[in-house]
């Protein structure tokens, strides 16, 4: 029954493979053939005791803690080993793996704007906000709230007014928004912001660009006013710089342009103030900071407030018209939120 192992095992290996390592299995094979009957289960194959089958609770807990500790130890060792290897290899070390996050595994979106796309550029150059970007109009913002605002909302309005230059705060006085819009147009406002409140807390924001829209409706959450932020200094009346982050899709571009059109051109850098609209997973984070360059590398930030988070609910073509207005985009939760990795802005 025995035959020389070379007769059938060598053709399997590529010709280059002549090192010892590759031949190892062949040798083992021959050994196995020799003591075929003597094969026994090795002692290390005894499975570890099943902890959950221990009936004494205290012992079970102890065993579990022990197991955890051991696993952690092994993990640490593995990490150390990898680190040592990487150090030893120096530049040739394999690159560090990038952790998978919801953002970088985002579902492909075909509306992602390519900055060289002629058609999108043309569309944007002729949209409703174009007059701001060509510097033909200067922003003038009307800020108001829902009827009979409570103190949190009024304070929020005030702080928003301090944050946005050239803005005026008005009490709503029970006026219909559809009646407010023509008056605002007559007074040459370019934007209307309406803060809605529920249970004494601001919960919605309507941003309406004038004269012909669009109108965006946001949900507001996590409002922190100036007083609630620790060590917040007072803001000045300088025109702030505007930072818009991650507005990359076609819808995101429109929303980003609407935010940009709230603030005047040419920020006053002496004020060292910046307003940030940071989009992450479709939540838009609003922050207002004063910065200070400490040296070439470090920047000190001082948050001025207010601080809040927005989430887009709908974008309407034209000015506010809840009954007959046409929607450019509506967030339909059950239809659209099919994946946690799908974003629209």
């Amino acid at each position, binding site marked *: *029954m025995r035959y020389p192992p070379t007769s*059938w*095992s060598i*053709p*399997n290996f590529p010709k280059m493979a002549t090192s010892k390592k590759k031949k*190892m*299995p062949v040798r*083992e*094979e021959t050994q*196995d*053939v020799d003591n*075929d009957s003597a*094969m026994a289960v090795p002692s290390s194959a005894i499975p570890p005791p099943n902890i959950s089958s221990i009936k004494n609770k205290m012992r079970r807990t102890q065993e579990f803690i022990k197991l955890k500790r051991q696993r952690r130890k092994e993990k640490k060792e593995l990490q150390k080993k990898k680190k040592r290897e990487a150090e030893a290899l120096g530049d040739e070390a394999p690159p560090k793996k990038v952790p998978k996050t919801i953002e970088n595994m985002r579902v492909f979106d*075909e*509306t992602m704007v390519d900055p060289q*796309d*002629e*058609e*999108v550029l*043309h*569309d944007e150059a*002729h949209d409703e906000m174009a007059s701001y970007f060509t510097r033909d109009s200067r922003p003038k913002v009307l800020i108001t709230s829902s009827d009979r605002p409570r103190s949190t909302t009024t304070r929020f309005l005030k702080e928003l007014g301090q944050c946005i230059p050239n803005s005026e705060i008005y009490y709503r006085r029970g006026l219909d928004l559809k009646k407010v819009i023509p008056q605002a147009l007559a007074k040459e406002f370019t934007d209307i912001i309406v803060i809605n409140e529920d249970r004494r807390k601001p919960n919605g924001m309507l941003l309406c660009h004038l004269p012909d829209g669009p109108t965006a409706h946001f949900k507001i959450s996590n409002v922190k006013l100036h007083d609630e932020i620790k060590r917040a200094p007072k803001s000045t009346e300088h025109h702030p710089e505007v930072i818009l982050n991650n507005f990359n899709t*076609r819808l995101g571009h429109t929303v980003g342009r609407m935010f940009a059109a709230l603030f005047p051109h040419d920020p006053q850098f002496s004020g060292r103030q910046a307003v940030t609209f940071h989009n992450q997973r479709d939540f838009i984070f609003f922050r207002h900071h004063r910065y200070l360059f400490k040296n070439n590398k470090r920047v000190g930030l001082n948050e001025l407030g207010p601080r809040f988070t927005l989430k887009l609910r709908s974008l309407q*073509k034209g000015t506010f018209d809840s*009954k*007959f*207005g*046409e*929607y*450019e*985009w*509506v967030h*339909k939760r059950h*239809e*659209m939120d099919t994946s946690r990795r799908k974003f629209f802005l």
Partner: protein
Amino acid sequence: MAASMQHVYVGAATGVFKGVNLAKKTATNFQNVASLSREEEICAMCWGNQQESQVCIGLKNGLVKTFDAEQGEFTDCANCAGGEGKFTGLAKYQESLVTCVESGLLRVWKDEDKVDIEVGKDVCRMRQNHALPHQVATGGKENELKLWDIQEPEKPIFKAKNVRNDFLDLRVPVWVTDLQFLSEQKLVTCTGHRQVRVYDPATPQRRPALNVELGEYALTALSVTPDCHSVIVGDSQGSMVMVDLRMGKVQKAFKGFAGGIRSLQCHPSLPLVASCGLDRFLRIHDINTKEMLHKVYLKSKLNCLLFSSADFTQEQTETTKKQKRKLESSNITEEDEDELWGSMSVVQDSKKADKTKRKSKSKKLKKLK
């Protein structure tokens, strides 16, 4: 000839005119984007001839351009300005163009002389009866549905009457947003106040024969399905439903919309419906299964579309058949396969556990040989 293969033509608010080939899944832009302005917004479209090789597009500034699908370029440009506002409908009648604008001027452009019909203010839509091409219907805001004969422009053939007052004895407002001929005689309209109505001009009754209320948002577009039993309506918030006209009930709803629908059209023979709107997508749904078959991002807000009556699924199947044939030819017969398996050498593993089994197998093989 590549240009003649377009299955859907769409006109955008930016003035971009595109053709979409659904079999090849390509979209072609036929206009130079850089030269366009907001005044060249495409408001209405119609086929230029029976063979559907020409497309007429009505622009906001009063021009009507003719696009030749075979040549893939614009061949003609006529100034059809008159009245005020955008075009609400275009039609072809015996080589002459029929236009209608928002202010209510319906014009038939025979060479040199024109026939004018005043159809009333705030027209939202004008459509032609494809069975009787000399008939057109109009409707708009506070402007009831009217049926016109182009040959007798003095008086409408049929003028609809508003429905009875509601339970509070208040007048029901009129706002016809879209309409279509259901058969030779009957008409379907949808309104901004969420109703779908069927009119029958053949009967003496001028009020609608059927009046269905739907949803919450203004209806913007409609199209009759190929079997003429139901109608598909789209609204300003992006929902599209199919209404059965025999029962007067919503039959099914189509999914996948993000923004308001501006235009929709059913395929004349296949169970397909194309829709486009403010969310910049062209979507093709299967009417029977409600499934979305195609979704094309076209980069601009789309105003109107034309769905060609060509049967493009045939092309698709042809291509798939070709692919299948290719696959077949590349397939290996069973004998070849056996040979291939025979010529392969036995793979070994260094793992101990498998060894005994594999060894015995290889031994058996040896024996067989």
